[in-house]
């Protein structure tokens, strides 16, 4: 499928578009499988699915360069897949097995990959925001031009430490992009019930941090906004806020009866604004891919996901002496 023509958006080739389609589809199918394994009792505890929000991480990863860092909250499976972590290792962590990224000791909410510059996976709402600014602090200290993508939700946007962080990030010109994934519900509380002013991208104004609102169901819009933010940060101009409007189709976690919104609302988003369907349509309408091409991609993704699930079931539980390892480091962990 050599690119026959570019899409309506400049600088996006058919191959790129197909790559985004594939990356988003991987997240969706992976999350569906995770939901299934949760239902079977193979995944325990809390499990927060990313279905519906795929364009956010895929768009921003498309704007990131080698060496850039990312850190997020507990809804983290999508971020890990998008930055290139192995679906097998992620799924095996979900099932609490030896081959998981944290050798079964972190679980869904606490996963890391030094190799991929993925700094977690954090379970406390808002706590990863200063951590992300701290990663940016380390890059500024080392005088490289890396940036840190610090993801959090509309719920976390009301935590006090977020504003403490905005203040210092602006004061010290830290190269951090604050990505507010506004999926409109903080667990079961709709944004208008929790937030005095709805425009979260304006929340940096008091600190002089520029911000913009982005359509999070459009991967190309997310990518474009991400590139703008990255350019700002790399130029040493300090932090940037992206409020990315998105929507999660599933409950807050697996154990969410979801009585705070109507079935119709969810259905409408799925039918009219689905980020994967959006790219699919672009691919087909632009004649960048045929139905058969897309079917082949679907099949390929399904295989990857099924393999990861099989791997995660087969991988043994951690040896019991793992209980007592990694409490203290004997040496300073190597810098990535």
């Amino acid at each position: 499928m050599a690119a026959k023509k570019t899409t309506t958006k400049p600088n996006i080739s058919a191959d790129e578009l197909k790559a985004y389609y594939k990356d988003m589809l991987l997240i969706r199918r992976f999350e569906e499988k995770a939901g299934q394994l949760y239902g079977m009792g193979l995944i325990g505890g809390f499990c927060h699915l990313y279905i519906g929000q795929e364009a956010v991480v895929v768009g921003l990863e498309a704007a990131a360069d080698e060496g850039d860092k990312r850190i997020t909250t507990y809804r983290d499976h999508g971020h890990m897949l998008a930055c290139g972590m192995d679906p097998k290792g992620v799924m095996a962590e979900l099932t609490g097995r030896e081959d998981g990224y944290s050798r079964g000791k972190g679980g869904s909410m606490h996963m890391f990959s030094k190799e991929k510059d993925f700094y977690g996976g954090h379970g406390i709402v808002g706590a990863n925001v200063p951590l992300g600014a701290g990663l940016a602090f380390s890059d500024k200290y080392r005088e490289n031009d890396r940036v840190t993508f610090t993801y959090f939700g509309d719920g976390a946007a009301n935590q006090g430490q977020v504003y403490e962080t905005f203040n210092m990030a602006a004061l010290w010109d830290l190269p951090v992009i604050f990505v507010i994934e506004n999926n409109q519900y903080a667990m079961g509380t709709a944004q208008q019930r929790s937030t005095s002013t709805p425009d979260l991208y304006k929340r940096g104004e008091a600190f002089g941090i520029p911000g913009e609102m982005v359509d999070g169901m459009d991967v190309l819009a997310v990518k474009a906004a991400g590139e703008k933010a990255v350019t700002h940060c790399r130029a040493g101009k300090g932090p940037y806020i992206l409020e990315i409007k998105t929507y999660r189709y599933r409950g807050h976690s697996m154990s969410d009866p979801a009585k705070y919104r109507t079935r119709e609302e969810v259905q409408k988003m799925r039918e009219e604004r689905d980020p994967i369907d959006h790219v699919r349509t672009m691919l087909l309408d632009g004649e960048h891919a045929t139905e058969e091409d897309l079917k082949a991609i679907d099949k390929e993704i399904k295989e990857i996901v099924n393999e990861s699930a099989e791997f995660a079931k087969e991988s043994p539980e951690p040896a019991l002496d793992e209980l007592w390892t990694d409490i203290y480091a004997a040496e300073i962990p190597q810098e990535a």
Partner: protein
Amino acid sequence: MATEILMPALSPTMEEGTLAKWLVKEGDTVNSGDILAEIETDKATMEFEAVDEGVIGKILVEEGTEGVKVNTPIAVIGEEGEDMSAAEASAPAASGDDGAKEAQESAQPTAAAQPADPPQSDRSPDWPEGTEMTTMTVREALNTAMVEEMERDDGVFLMGEEVAEYEGAYKITQGLLDKFGAKRVVDTPITEHGFTGIAVGAAFGGLKPIVEFMTFNFAMQAIDQIINSAAKTLYMSGGQMGAPMVFRGPNGAAARVAAQHSQDYAAWYAHIPGLKVVMPYTAADAKGLLKSAIRDPNPVIFLENEILYGRTFEVPVLDDFTVPFGKARIAREGSDVTIVSFGIGMSYAMEAAEKLAEEGVDAEVVDLRTLRPLDYGTVLDSVRKTNRMVTIEEGWPVGAIGNHLSAHVMTHAFDYLDAPVLNVCGKDVPMPYAANLERHALVTTDEVIEAVNQVTYR
């Protein structure tokens, strides 16, 4: 291919539920995301969505059925026109068992034992005999330790309120800004929660932050970052990344600053696996332990004391003097009773020991120096010699370090004890402001002497 739809677990604790209502019937075509059924869990009624697309072949569990075990097949789904009788036949009657349970059961029944502490206590001297000594305040010792370590490693930086231009609220960081510049000596806004999180993030990023809390009382604002982010990440990441850093500042009561500014956090932090906790008394220990803390690849809580900052002690003149963690110091050898303390508690311990000596009681005084790791061996050796123990600390009596040591000694040296262990602690009250009340709220030397008299039956 026909597949079974299994009764799902919809909460971390659900084992069975009621299949309240089917929203599809046999022969219906469903897409991923369509609601199949309503299921009542122990908490709520939840909608259960289809994951795969296909045609509902057979419903195996009627609506209204209670006590349906998780993982029981409840329906069969397949492609249009497919014969689904095979899948149906293979459906087990109503057992809840499957891979999940199996996996749980495959775990070995015996729990792994906690790795044992080193059996021998390290009684080597902290510096070679004949080493030249100088005198120094605790304040100077801490300052010197930071200067030496910042010169040694350019990844070490200091951040906190008033650490740079003001040169420290208690003047511990005097001269550091001039020496190392604003990049490495960073004044922060008054925002403990935020700057602690930033420091932990910087440690994840490979730097070695020293966070100065103006006092440890203010670290309460940041305690989530200290415990949930700094202490636990190495474990949660399977050893991939952690927080090599130091949190330091004055801890415990100073003088007349009342309840919110006077509190000893030793026992709080010593409770947390993943943290190391240091509480020095002498200037030599302040210097040697702070240097070790800065080099340690783990998060270290370094508890200083405002009253001790100005006290002068002998410090060895050595190029690179460090004190290892987990090695208690025998501050005074004796044979009649073991007095165990740390930090400012040592001043009561030493004063009491001197007075007791005048009365003919020969007390051994053990300065723990670090609470995590804790040198159990030295304490046990001493108790096996003296057969009696008194602990001293300024913290509150419930869940005190002394409680923990008492339990440890009871477990490991019960037969050596000639008297119950006594814990001398701060009083179980918020710190009062009035001078006379404050004196009574704190540990006194007289209380230590009285406790020793009790355990020696005098």
